[in-house]
């Protein structure tokens, strides 16, 4: 069973709707029991890093998440703020992240880059696979996804970068290491491109 981790923030309904559309039932839950029995986890989230991390900590399931992600190694997908929470820290706050990726979350800055770059970066952007990432389907043209963010994930080891996009500069919009995956953009709001990505995740061997 795919469990969408509910810690009070995020497009939980949208993710479940899209999974349902492509034929997968998912449970939305913040309960230890459900998360323990999950075969796959999706960590969603919108809003600020610290309030997200605090809300996640308040559920009391963080230890179980660590266990599922790092020891049991079930497939995990972080989305938007959920992706950033998988890094070690963020310019946006003081709380420690989950630290599953050798990466930190940085504020987008555009010094020395010509043009207007309003933040948040809101809109559809082309996304490229990196390091042979298999969840992103590029066989039917350049995939595009819906982004809403002012911070991005900076990988400290380039081999964990799974996807990149551009807004003023090229940035990592996806990280991947073994069973762990994350995306800065919103697959659940990205039409067929998002369906393909969620489908590929849902089909991963548990």
């Amino acid at each position: 069973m795919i469990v969408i981790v509910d810690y009070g923030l995020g497009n939980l309904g949208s993710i479940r709707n899209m999974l349902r559309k492509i034929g997968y039932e998912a449970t939305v839950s913040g309960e230890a029991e459900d998360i323990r029995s999950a075969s796959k986890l999706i960590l969603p989230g919108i809003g600020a890093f610290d309030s997200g991390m605090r809300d996640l900590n308040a559920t009391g399931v963080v230890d179980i998440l660590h266990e599922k992600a790092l020891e049991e190694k079930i497939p995990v997908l972080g989305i938007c703020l959920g992706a950033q929470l998988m890094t070690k820290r963020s310019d946006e706050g003081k709380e420690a992240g989950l630290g599953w990726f050798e990466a930190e979350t940085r504020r987008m800055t555009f010094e020395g880059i010509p043009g207007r770059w309003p933040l948040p970066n809101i809109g559809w952007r082309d996304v490229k696979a990196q390091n042979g990432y298999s969840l992103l389907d590029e066989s039917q043209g350049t995939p595009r996804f819906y982004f809403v963010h002012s911070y991005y994930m900076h990988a400290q080891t380039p081999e964990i970068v799974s996807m990149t996009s551009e807004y003023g500069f090229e940035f990592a919009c996806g990280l991947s290491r073994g069973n762990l995956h994350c995306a800065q953009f919103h697959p659940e709001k990205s039409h067929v491109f998002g369906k393909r990505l969620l489908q590929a995740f849902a089909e991963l061997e548990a």
Partner: protein
Amino acid sequence: MKLRTRIIPLLLLKGQGLYKTRKFRDETYIGDPINAVRIFNEKAVDELGFLDIGAARNGSDPNFDLLKDIASECFMPLSYGGGVKSVEMVRELVAIGIEKIVVNSAAWTDKGLITRIADHFGSSTVVGSIDVKRNWRGKEQVMIRGGQEKIALAPVDWALEMERRGVGEIMINAIDRDGEMTGYDLDLVRSVAGAVSVPVIAAGGASSISDLQAAVTEADATAAAGGAMFVFQGKHRAVLITYPTEEERAGF
């Protein structure tokens, strides 16, 4: 690097139906909102905006049941405005899959609303919406409650104040152009886009792709919204849901 500009159909709800106005009046019934959403889904629309004009005028609560049905069909970004007065309402809307909340009149009457929403859900969850009417001398006046009431702030000042309170986007709508398909009020859009640092959505008057383009290239908007253009066809305004194809919008 060429960035894709968001082209956003703005759909007006009243009761259970979809309507289109002219200058915020003369409502024409368009059809069933769920049906429209399905068509826009097939057309892979960039984003959809829903505004409940009934709730905007009389301050009644959002129609959560209808919005839930709409959101469950939406695989694209979705914004909603009309009657949103509290963080609790935002929580409910976000939970059903609406990730952007449009605030207008309530931001004026409740000075802390935008900041409370932004603190809970992040700035990108709040869109500040500003409706502007020009008086007989051409002077810009900000109107609230669906164009019924004037407030004592200029559009640029209200936009800056909304930005300071924490909105992630500003939507600027020219009431005089609404449904008229005479092009955007580019001066208005430019003045606001030049003053704030958050993205600006132009609304009111779009009739063609070149209008949408002008909002970006001539007035510095980052997104272009329209109503009549996406629901009417031809000079007799026959109801037909359309959206630019990838070929038609190539390079934009």
